[in-house]
């Protein structure tokens, strides 16, 4: 096993400083989310940043600028709260070099030998070998392609390892093999451009790329166990980010550093995801890694499974028209907007001399607009008071014994769809995402909102200790403090790579899974599938198409189904369908959902807790009540003076 620098004597600043290495997670489990606060205290990195850094594939590194001893203490503390972390020094990584390059490869049925130019054996793979394989593309094209696909579709990890390997084979593939049988310094570098194959001619072709693929697959199949790094040496590791545009040699240099990270991760058992595997037993959402060979890196197939969260379906696309988006704005915003736009405009117009003939009109318009705004604010305060009383007066139901009509529920949010935020692909039950662009204008510069995305109508569950029920948030008033994460530039979620761009900014607000939730809404029965009438029609249609069954109803055996015979058939079918529906009960065809009440001003509110909601509603009620009354008083005074 390679010796990490924590065992190497420190001689300079680099030696005494380093990084924290950790294994990223495709989905953050509850205990990780709960540990974020403690992790923030330990590392000094804020929770939202940590959440982004922890999500993704492979290993990640945190540069928290502390000396090695402190880093090791940090790592121990993080391990204590369930985040598998280890420390690695900068010096160890900096000195990372590629192992000797192979010139010839001799493939036989029982071994793969990597030979140098003089045909001396550099490295040997047998059935007893335990391997670390790092694969990359020296041209950078495939890596860029995959990165883009991951960034914009988020589903590249659904590709099988074979598919990815195939793509690499088309470009300029390279691989590093290390032995994990005790001496991990024992390795070999394989660049598909500079070696030739010997043996196993029946499996080889004229294409270097496909031969490379054969060699990797043979190595994996032949060895006892293998860990394949599928992050192509491009993970967000400090100092190990190859600049693909600068040609082959910098890539090779960075790969040397990158391998040091991977070796440390393997040595400290970060890569086999042992912690994730343990979590799977007590966490529903943590997928099982069963099926992996012990000590192997989870395959892409596994990762796809992990990412899809218990096989949840992705949410359907919901398009919002501009009108819908406009009416989604809350009422207070509309009122304030009304005052802000109409009143100053009217005052301005009433002062413009060129339209002095219309001054009276504009002054009246200004006064009336403010009176109207005051009345609206007053009415809104009463509505808020009504909502507050409703929240206070409605008892909290248990989900198991939910009755139809207005209900109040308290529990935790759970996923219905595999919903992910649009920028960082963080799993959540609800999100709002705003994209900004930095713009220079005549008045100066500002962040201009370019796009706003919300998960809007996507349903989710609320769960208490007795069960769960679906919430359809269409038309709900969200009064819940959301977790906010913002960053400048764009973000590649699956790799946890943030591409910095000072001119763009993304602000993401989300309600994560298992967030504390309070819901006041209407419980309704939702019917799924076909109605009884439709089932009867279907059955009758099938009956018509089956001459054998039809002949059973041909009582007078004239070869024709007359009206009476058809009536008999129809009543039989009806009886059968009703009997079936009675026997099966409502079953899956009916379910209870919580949604906006279908009539009146009854509220549909989603909040974090009843106590906080009442406090907020009370505060707003007083603000709007006094605001409304004083606005009305001011505007009436203005109008009275004007008419005098």
């Amino acid at each position, binding site marked *: 096993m390679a010796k990490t620098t924590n065992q190497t004597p420190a001689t300079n600043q680099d030696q005494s400083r380093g990084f924290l290495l950790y294994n990223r997670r495709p989905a953050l489990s509850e205990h990780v989310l709960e540990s974020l606060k403690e992790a923030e205290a330990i590392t000094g990195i804020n929770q939202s940043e940590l959440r982004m850094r922890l999500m993704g594939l492979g290993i990640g590194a945190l540069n928290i600028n502390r000396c090695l001893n402190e880093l090791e203490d940090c790592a121990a503390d993080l391990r204590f709260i369930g985040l598998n972390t280890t420390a690695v020094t900068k010096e160890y990584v900096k000195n990372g070099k590629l192992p000797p390059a192979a010139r010839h490869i001799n493939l036989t049925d029982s071994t793969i030998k990597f030979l140098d130019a003089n045909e001396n054996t550099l490295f040997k793979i047998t059935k007893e070998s335990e391997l670390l394989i790092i694969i990359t593309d020296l041209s950078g094209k495939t890596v860029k392609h995959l990165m883009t696909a991951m960034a914009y579709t988020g589903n590249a990890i659904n590709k099988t390892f074979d598919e990815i390997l195939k793509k690499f084979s088309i470009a300029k593939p390279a691989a590093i093999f290390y032995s994990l049988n005790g001496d991990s310094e024992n390795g070999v570098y394989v660049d598909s451009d500079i070696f030739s194959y010997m043996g196993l001619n029946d499996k080889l072709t004229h294409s270097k790329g496909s031969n490379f693929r054969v060699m990797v697959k043979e190595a994996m199949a032949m060895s006892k166990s293998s860990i394949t790094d599928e992050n192509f040496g491009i993970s967000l590791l400090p100092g190990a980010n190859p600049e693909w545009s600068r040609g082959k040699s910098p890539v090779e240099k960075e790969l040397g550093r990158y391998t040091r990270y991977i070796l440390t991760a393997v040595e400290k058992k970060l890569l086999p995801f042992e912690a994730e595997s343990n979590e799977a037993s007590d966490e529903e959402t943590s997928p099982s890694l069963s099926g992996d060979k012990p000590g192997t890196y989870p395959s892409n197939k596994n990762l796809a499974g992990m990412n899809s969260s218990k096989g949840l379906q992705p949410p359907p696309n919901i398009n919002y028209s501009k009108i819908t988006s406009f009416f989604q704005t809350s009422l207070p915003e509309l009122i304030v907007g009304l005052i802000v736009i109409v009143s100053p405009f009217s005052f301005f117009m009433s002062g413009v001399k060129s339209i002095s003939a219309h001054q009276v009109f504009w002054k009246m318009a200004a006064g009336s607009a403010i009176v109207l705004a005051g009345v609206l604010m007053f009415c809104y305060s009463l509505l808020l008071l009504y909502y507050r*009383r409703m929240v206070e*007066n409605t*008892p909290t*139901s248990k989900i198991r014994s939910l009755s139809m009509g207005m209900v109040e529920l308290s529990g935790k949010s759970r996923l219905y769809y595999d919903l992910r935020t649009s920028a960082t692909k963080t799993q959540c039950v609800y999100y709002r995402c705003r994209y900004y662009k930095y713009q220079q204008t005549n008045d100066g510069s500002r962040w201009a909102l370019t796009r706003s995305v919300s998960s809007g109508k996507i349903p989710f569950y609320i769960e208490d200790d007795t069960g769960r029920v679906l919430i359809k948030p269409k038309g709900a008033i969200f009064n819940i403090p959301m977790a906010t994460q913002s960053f400048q530039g764009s973000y590649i979620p699956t790799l946890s790579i943030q591409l910095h761009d000072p001119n763009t900014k993304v602000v993401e607000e989300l309600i994560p899974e298992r967030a504390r939730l309070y819901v006041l809404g209407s419980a309704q029965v939702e019917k799924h599938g076909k109605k009884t009438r439709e089932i009867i029609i279907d059955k009758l249609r099938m009956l018509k198409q089956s001459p054998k069954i039809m002949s059973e109803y041909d009582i007078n055996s004239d070869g024709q189904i007359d009206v009476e015979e058809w009536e008999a058939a129809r009543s039989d079918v009806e009886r059968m369908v009703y009997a079936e529906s009675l026997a099966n009960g409502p079953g899956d065809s009916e379910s209870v959902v919580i949604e906006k009440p279908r009539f009146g001003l009854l509220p549909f509110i989603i909040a974090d807790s009843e106590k906080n909601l009442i406090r907020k509603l009370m505060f707003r009620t007083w603000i709007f009540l006094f605001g409304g*009354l004083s606005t009305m*008083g001011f505007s009436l*005074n203005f109008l009275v003076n004007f008419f005098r």
Partner: protein
Amino acid sequence: MTLIILLTLLGIIVALITFCIIIYNGLISLKHNISKAWSNIDVLLKQRYDELPKLVSVCEGYMQHERAVLENVTKARSQLDSAGSEKEIVNANNAITSALRSLFAVVENYPDLKADRAFRQLQARVSQLEDQIADRRELYNESVNLFNIRIEQFPDVIIASMMRLDERELWQIDPEHREDVNMKFSVPA
């Protein structure tokens, strides 16, 4: 100036009247919440009432020596039949719950009965109903509690006294039903 004062007074009066209306409506909704919670319990009590004869008939086949236990269940059921007031219904329901607890405890002595599919289904159904009744009883008590608090709070107390609203009783478990069921197991020879 007088006009302004008049308008302000008018505004305050409108606000007060609206506030009173909201309080009045709130109290009405609280009152009806209790009725709704009670009706929702009633639905479940009816469902359990319908399941009891089936349960007793399944048990009778196996429990020839436990007539008393089965009779208790039947008696409690008929008590519910004759119950008129809310209090009588609560008492009858408590009696059924107690009788069922005794029955399920005694069933432990009858492995054949425990293995019977129909019995298991009925037991699961009755237990499920029991859980739901317990939840709804909790909801009922919360509704009553909210109502009782509200009618004693200021300023609701003024409107509540004008409406002559009285304190409602919580659904409390009879002390004798809180006692543990005495379980006796016969050891097979």
